[in-house]
């Protein structure tokens, strides 16, 4: 019993713990290095984020992401884990709703007032994104229609029309906004 146990755990460690992950790393790095290394978006000054990971936005001219339990700390993601009958959750949602509706002047959709599971959600719902358009347009000094057009271009649809939701990637939308309608110097 002892010899097979020790030999096979050693062989399995070499095979599944070193050979397999290292071969996958080599393959990934050779074929799709950008994706293998976290899909980083590099601008003139260096990397500005990962295309897949949410980041915090507070400026009036930017599309705002969902609330996050960790303020978009991508070194230690987490949700609130508050249960459905939690008074703390109820109060936090009510407060976020007041703030969001004051900023945007339209009823807040559910995803704008609830925190995601990872705390790093890169997306907001279409309703959430469109609801913020007027504020973004005012801050950038452009027409509402211009902002809506950028948001529509950043829209992601359900897979095969069956799986997942209509949504907008916040970082992609904000990069597109900066490219199409740079912020007026005063708002910077």
């Amino acid at each position, binding site marked *: 019993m002892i010899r097979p146990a020790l030999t096979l755990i050693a062989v399995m460690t070499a095979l599944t713990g070193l050979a397999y992950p290292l071969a996958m790393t080599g393959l990934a790095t050779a074929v799709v290095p950008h994706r293998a290394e976290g899909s*980083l978006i590099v601008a003139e000054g260096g*990397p500005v984020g990962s295309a897949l990971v949410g980041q915090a936005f507070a400026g009036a001219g930017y599309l705002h992401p969902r609330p996050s339990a960790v303020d978009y700390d991508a070194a230690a993601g987490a949700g609130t884990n508050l249960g459905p009958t939690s008074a703390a959750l109820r109060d936090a949602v009510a407060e976020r709703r007041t703030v969001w509706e004051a900023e945007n002047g339209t009823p807040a959709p559910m995803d704008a007032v609830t925190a995601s599971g990872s705390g790093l959600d890169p997306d907001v719902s279409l309703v959430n994104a469109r609801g913020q358009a007027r504020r973004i347009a005012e801050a950038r000094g452009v027409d509402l229609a211009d902002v809506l057009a950028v948001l529509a271009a950043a829209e992601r649809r359900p897979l095969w029309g069956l799986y997942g939701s209509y949504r907008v990637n916040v970082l992609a939308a904000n990069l597109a906004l900066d490219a199409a309608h740079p912020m007026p110097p005063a708002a910077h």
Partner: protein
Amino acid sequence: MTDLLGFALFAAALTAAAWALAAHMTRIYENAPARAERGLYRLAGVRADVMQDGRSYALAVLAFNAAGFVLLYAILRAQAVLPLNPDGVGAMAPHLAFNTAISFVTNTNWQAYSGEVQLSYLSQMAGLTVQNFVSAATGMAVGVAVIRGFAGRPLGNFWTDMTRSVLYVLIPLSVVLGVVLILQGVPQTLLGAAHVTTLEGADQTIARGPAAAQIAIKQLGTNGGGFFGVNSAHPLENPTVLSNMAQVFAILLIPVAFCFLFGRMVRDTRQGWAIFAAMGVLFALGLAVIHLSELAGNPLLGAGPNLEGKEMRFGAALSSLWAEATTAASNGSVNAMHDSFMPLSGLVMTVNIALGEVIFGGVGAGLYGMLLYVVLAVFLAGLMVGRTPEYLGRKIEAREVTLAVLAFLSIPLGILVGAALSATVPQAAASVQDAGPHGLGEILYAYASAVGNNGSAFAGWGAATQWQTTALGLLMLLGRYAVIVPMLAIAGSLSVKRQGVSTSGTFPTHGPLFVVLLIVTVVIFGALTFFPVLALGPVAEFTALRAGQSF
């Protein structure tokens, strides 16, 4: 309606793929070892053609898992001074390493730690990934041995069954899934965390690492331990809707295939379909409750589906499908935070686990767990008509029923006694995050998850205290081996029984009547055992929420 269509398409594709995989697995477990394998067995001193009885098969399982535990514990304790540690992670604390090592060896993958904070890349690869493979292969080997016993054949040889599960099932499937995940954007790199400056000028540190390879086997082996702390909710662990569908498919693939493998290996595919049907009905009922609860949402928070703890790309429907799949199949990975699901969803998830992980269940483990209920079901049927119960032509007698009851009792014993202690000892009760009935739900879920070797959690609950890591570590051992050992004993006992002649008085175990009886047996055992505590937890939480009460 779109959701229903999506679920139906998923079920059809899954069933077809599992059927094909079962044909492949039948060949793997019934053919003689290939030449390359024979060299490995010679090196290990294994005589591949020697059949083991129930006792020596069980001892081999225990010896192999003990060796795995020691190695993993050592790696976790020493990771600070070992290579492949670009972010300079320190050694894991002894009690946490104890809990983590047991957790991965028993195929539970309960995470009392957060991967990106507390594990080096070497620990993730040579520590956890290895156990993801071999704990899954252990479950598959035991599952196959139990099937052989029920089919009246010798149980086989643990060392070859385990090795062949890794070489011919788990590695090929993991490579395929790993490549899909990499193409979808899951990182697979040895570079340390990335440092970026956001558009608003803030610093953001983005954890990454050799994630895709580990995530592939974490799903296929019903392991569930995430590379990142928030598991498959993390946008780098599960970046797209396609990666999500591939992962949830992988969670169920091998467990479903085991139903059909059973039918093929006992030379009567109808028996496999009967067990598949019983599991499928329970799965669909659970999914319906979770999906409707999450869609209806939380009246305390306003109108709309419940999105607290959920990712926007998945929404309520895919989070519900995952929640049902991961709790039914003893996987334990999550793509949304279970602590924030609605009360009835939490109820279903807890029950899925507390039944003993038999709704498809863990790889191999789900099938031998369900066969435990089959023994009890044919015994009940025998009592009702006054005949000696039989299954697949072999008499189920006092020895088998006693062993089955013994194995079953380990589940309520571990869950109820463990949870009761944790709810009353102040030091342990401090782990509870939420006030009110949901707090009891958190305790119950944690203990069910450990004993059921699931590994998911109501994650607000504090799992990293010394009390909880120790208690849950011990209960994971109970939940794993107190079922494996009796089931191998039952299989060993059945394997030497003569097959009787089927007569008109024999109770057929492939028709709808048997499927209903099996479902009723599972539900009655589960309901009778856990109803009182469920009434105080999720049911009370449900009624409180209906009354508009918060805590």
